[in-house]
Structure formats: C-alpha cells, structure tokens
C-alpha cells in the first residue's frame, strides 16, 4: 500500500509541527525551577490534566494496536476499556490519589521510598526508567517503519525528525509543554479518526449491518456467528471465543491485575494527575479522563471491526493487506485512511496518527527525566545540588532520554522481537507492583523488606509461570516454555499473559504479607501518616458542587461502564 500526499497534506503536517513547537517556545518563559519543569508547578486545572492523562496513554500502540485487535478479536477488545481501564481509573482517583498527591512524594518511586525503603524505590526507579526509554524507542521505530512503508519516507530521517520535535517542546516547556501538547494531540486524534469511523459505519450499514457482516467472520473462524460482536456471551469457555480466554482469567488477569497495575502505579499517567493545582483536581483527573476513555472503543476498536467486515464481504473494494498466511492487522488504520480519506483529509488523518506516536513518546520521556533526576541522580549521585543544577540535569536528561530512545529504536529495528520482550518485562514488573502498592497503602504493617522481597519473588513467579507455559502453536523460547517441557498450553498469547499476571500478583501479595509478618516495621506511625489509609484523615470535599465530587463522578462513570457491558453483552 502506498499513499500519495498532496501539497495540502504536507501543509497540515507542517502547521501541526509549528504549533507543537510553538507551545514549547511560549511555555519556555514559565519554567523557572524544577517544580515547573517536572511537576508543572502543580498548577493545572483538572480537565487539562485529564486530557493529558489519556493523551499520554493514547500512544500509537493504542490507536494502531486496538484497531488491529478489533479486527482480530472483535468487540471483546473493549474489555481493555470496560473491564480494564475504567474501574482502575476510578479506583486510583478515589483511593490512591490522596496518598500520591497528599504525600511529599514527587514521583511514584519516591512514594515507595517514603512508605517502604530505599531499595524498593531503587528497584522501581531503575526498572521504570529502562521501560520508558524502551517504550519511547519502540514508538519511534514503529512510526518510522510505518511512514517508510506507506509514504516511502526515509527511515533514519523519520527517527531524527520525531526525536527532535519531541525534544524541542519538552526541553523548553517541560511537563506543562508535554501536557499541553497531549491535550492538542487528544483533540487531533479524536477529530482525525472520528470521520473514519462515521464513514465506515455508514458503508457497512450501521451497527446492524456490521453485526450481520461479521457473522460469517465468526463462523469461518469456527465460533458462534456473534463471536465478533458479543463481549461476554462467549467467555464461558476459552475455546468459544477468538481471544481464547474465559471470564475468570479476563476479569482477574486483565480487569484486576494488569489494568490496576498499569493505571494505579505507572508514573507516566500518575505524573499527569500530580500536576493538578489541588487535591480535588488531582482526584478528579482520572475520573474526568475516564469519561472519554469509556467511549474510545468507538474510535479505536470499531475501525478494526469495520475493516474486517468490509474485507470479508469484499464490499466497496476494501482490502486488508496480507502478511504471510494471515492478514496484516497492523495495517488496519492506514488501509482505512487510504480508503476513506482523499488528499486533504489524508493529511489530517496522518497528522493525527503522528500525534499519537508523539504523545506516547513525550509521555515516556517526561516520566523518564523526572524519575532519573529525582529518584536516581538526586538520590544516588548528587544529593546537595541547587535547584538550578537539577533543572539543568533535567534538561540534559531529556536530551539523553531522546538519544537513548533513538538507540532503542535502532535496537528494535535489529531485533524484531523487542516488542515481545518489552511486553514481557512489563507484565513481569507491573503486575506484582500493584500488590505492593495495595498492601503499602492499606496495610500499615507491610514492611520495607516485605515489599522488596515480595516484589522480587512476584517477578520471579511471573518468570517461572512464563517459562513453564506456552501459547498454542508457539515454540519454546521468547513466547514461553524455556524452563523445559511446558506444563500448560494456553489457547492464546493473551490468555498466557493474563495468567502470568495473576500468578505474579498473587505471589507478590502473599509473600509481602508473610515476609512483613516476620520482619520488623522500621517506620514509625508518624512517618507513615499521609502514606497509609488508616493513618490519613479522609479527604472531605465539602463545599464542592456534586458534579465535582470524586465519589459522585466515580459512581456515575462506573454505572455507565456497567451499562455498556450489559448492552454489548
């Protein structure tokens, strides 16, 4: 597939670049110290933080990956939102934000130091820093590869260009600049992809038409005719649905462990909420973010479902390119763009796609420079520098982070399985971490040794489970089974992932409790105040109108999500 751009498409792209960098230039004057650069001076209103919160997460993996999953698995992909993200976002807002925002911590690893000890913080800071650089590099690589494939642009030039633009606006305006751009990118992504969905839906004959056209897709794959359009109905057995997972693994693995692990402990998103101007705004941030997030399946999953329906019914000359024996699902979005968008709109669509890559990258880079400067440099390298010194270090780290990301992008080009490795590391590291936070925040007896060794053993449990199991049809190696004969074969990679997370979380949860009970709590009650639920005064948002109260907003969001699950059961 090759797209031809016209002058107007290039104009749109260039105007976008100008605005992105312009925001950095204007905000440069507002950065006078580390608090401005890393924490936006804790001054932003809730709605801006909320759009930054989802913007940072709305990376390319989400836009391209969810569309690919929509084509491959159908509406079950929406579980990533309606079981996964939304409940976790409401939970972090109501129960965890008071500790993040209310404590003196400036980052997630720093919270771990205050609550537990230095080694737990160090472990989290190092793994997190490594993961952000890798993620941002993979984002860069994916962008360059895509632009090279569909536009014929030079791969190296794409890497340098995306790196320089992101560097420019973070270097100048710090976190505020990244968040402002995420807000801009959020609107661009929504307004860029919405017409795609509307036109696609019109062509397949609305929702009813889509359901009818997806029936042969379900039966040809050996499932029920409605397998692509029912989200829960076929989860009684792992063999009855395209995702290869049953309801328990789904609800526990994805809904509980993986989603809560990501939304509640990943500094990339938490950093956006911590930039809010007050506690009420910080708590509202994830909930306001949950409102558009709840509707995102329409924007990112539906195009995939429409694409496979059109492809299968050979309607209107739409075809997905092939890759080996199957379809190249990653090309869903580019194929839809080229089908529905003429020159002009194509520029808008491509700009939206680029915006998603950049916001994902910038989110990682800002989280990286903060954790590096506060949790590694200031803790282990130079403790007594001036604020101006740490600001300079933060800026230098931004340059270093971008260069390291470029390195990771080239590494990704060398090893085509680096994406799998990253996902593996992510599942290994994030899933047990949620157990650590849960116990740290709600059980004052949890000790530093308990947290650290629980975390290590949880990660180990993930590795052992992964080493002893395999997804169907895979050979032993990176996909699992590297510890000898696989004891269990899962119907899909996703099922294996969910169960790896469940084992890791359970091991960390149980071992942290056991080790905490046999070790001494070294933190005094005073030290734990503001960090543990039972020792922290409840936040009373009296005087706030009802629609600004986190509990009320959270209940509305959860109720609506429940309704969506029922409607698309």
């Amino acid at each position, binding site marked *: 597939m090759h797209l031809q751009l016209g002058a107007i498409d290039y104009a749109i792209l260039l105007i976008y670049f100008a605005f992105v960098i312009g925001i950095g230039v204007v905000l440069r004057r507002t950065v006078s110290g580390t608090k401005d650069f890393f924490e936006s001076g804790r001054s932003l209103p809730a709605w801006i933080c909320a759009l930054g919160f989802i913007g940072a997460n709305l990376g390319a993996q989400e836009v391209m990956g969810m569309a690919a999953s929509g084509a491959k698995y159908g509406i079950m992909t929406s579980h990533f939102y309606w079981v996964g993200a939304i409940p976790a976002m409401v939970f972090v807002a109501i129960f965890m934000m008071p500790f993040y925002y209310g404590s003196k911590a400036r980052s997630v690893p720093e919270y771990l130091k205050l609550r537990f000890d230095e080694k737990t913080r160090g472990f989290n800071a190092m793994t997190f820093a490594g993961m952000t650089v890798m993620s941002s590099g993979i984002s860069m690589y994916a962008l360059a590869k895509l632009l090279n494939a569909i536009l014929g642009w030079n791969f190296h030039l794409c890497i340098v260009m995306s790196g320089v633009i992101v560097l420019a606006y973070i270097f100048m305006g710090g976190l505020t600049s990244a968040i402002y751009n995420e807000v801009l990118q959020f609107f661009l992504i929504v307004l860029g992809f919405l017409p795609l969905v509307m036109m696609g839906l019109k062509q397949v004959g609305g929702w009813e038409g889509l359901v009818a056209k997806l029936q042969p897709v379900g039966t040809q794959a050996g499932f029920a005719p409605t397998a692509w359009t029912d989200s829960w109905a076929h989860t009684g057995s792992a063999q009855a649905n395209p995702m290869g997972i049953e309801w328990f693994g789904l609800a526990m693995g994805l809904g509980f462990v993986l989603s809560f692990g990501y939304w509640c402990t990943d500094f990339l998103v938490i950093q956006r909420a911590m930039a809010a101007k007050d506690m009420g705004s910080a708590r509202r941030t994830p909930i306001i973010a949950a409102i558009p997030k709840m509707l995102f399946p329409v924007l990112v999953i539906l195009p995939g479902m429409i694409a496979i329906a059109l492809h299968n019914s050979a309607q209107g000359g739409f075809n997905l390119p092939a890759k080996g024996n199957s379809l190249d699902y990653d090309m869903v979005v580019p194929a839809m763009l080229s089908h529905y968008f003429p020159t*002009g709109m194509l520029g808008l669509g491509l700009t939206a796609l680029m915006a998603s890559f950049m916001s994902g990258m910038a989110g990682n880079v800002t989280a990286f420079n903060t954790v590096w400067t506060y949790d590694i440099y200031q803790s282990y390298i130079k403790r007594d520098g001036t604020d101006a010194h740490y600001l300079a270090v933060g800026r230098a780290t931004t340059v270093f982070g971008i260069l390291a990301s470029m390195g990771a992008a080239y590494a990704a080009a060398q090893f085509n399985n680096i994406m799998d490795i990253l996902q593996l590391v992510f599942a290994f590291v994030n899933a047990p971490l949620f157990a650590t936070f849960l116990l740290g925040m709600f059980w004052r007896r949890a000790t530093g040794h308990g947290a650290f060794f629980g975390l290590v053993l949880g990660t180990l449990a993930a590795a052992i489970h992964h080493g002893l199991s395999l997804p169907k049809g895979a050979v032993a190696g990176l996909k699992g089974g590297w510890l000898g004969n696989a004891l269990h074969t899962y119907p899909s990679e996703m099922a294996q992932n969910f169960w790896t997370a469940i084992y890791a979380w359970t091991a960390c949860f149980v071992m942290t409790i056991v080790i905490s009970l046999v070790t001494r709590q070294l933190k005094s009650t005073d030290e734990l105040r503001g960090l543990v639920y039972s020792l922290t005064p409840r936040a009373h948002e009296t005087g706030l109108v009802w629609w600004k109260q986190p509990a009320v907003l959270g209940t509305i969001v959860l109720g609506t999500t429940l309704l969506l699950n029922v409607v698309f059961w």
Partner: protein
Amino acid sequence: MHLDVRLPIGLMFSIFGTLLAAHGALADRRVWEQHPLRININLYWGLVLLVFGIAMLLLVVRGRRKG
C-alpha cells in the same frame, strides 16, 4: 504568565478547517464523486473543524473576560 491551552487548539483547528473546507469547495466534482460514499468529505469535515476551532477561541475570549 500561563498560556491558555485552548488558544493554540482553537487557532490550529480554525486553520485546518479553513484549509480543508476551501480545498473541498474548490475541488472538481469528479474528484470527490470517486469517494466510496460519494461525499465531499474535505468540505464537510473542514467546516466541522472550523466550528470547533472557533468555539475554542470563543472560550478563550470568555476566559479572559472572567479572569
């Protein structure tokens, strides 16, 4: 001084909207009739973007008056 984020958003979408709508309005009929849905999407979506951009700019003005 803090930049109102709605200002760049409003400006950018107003420019995008104007460009697209003008491009669509001036386009040869035969070009957009080849579209799978036979609609002049550049013109219509350009107008949507323009309305969105102007709405954002109005919010900026209102915010300034309040502030």
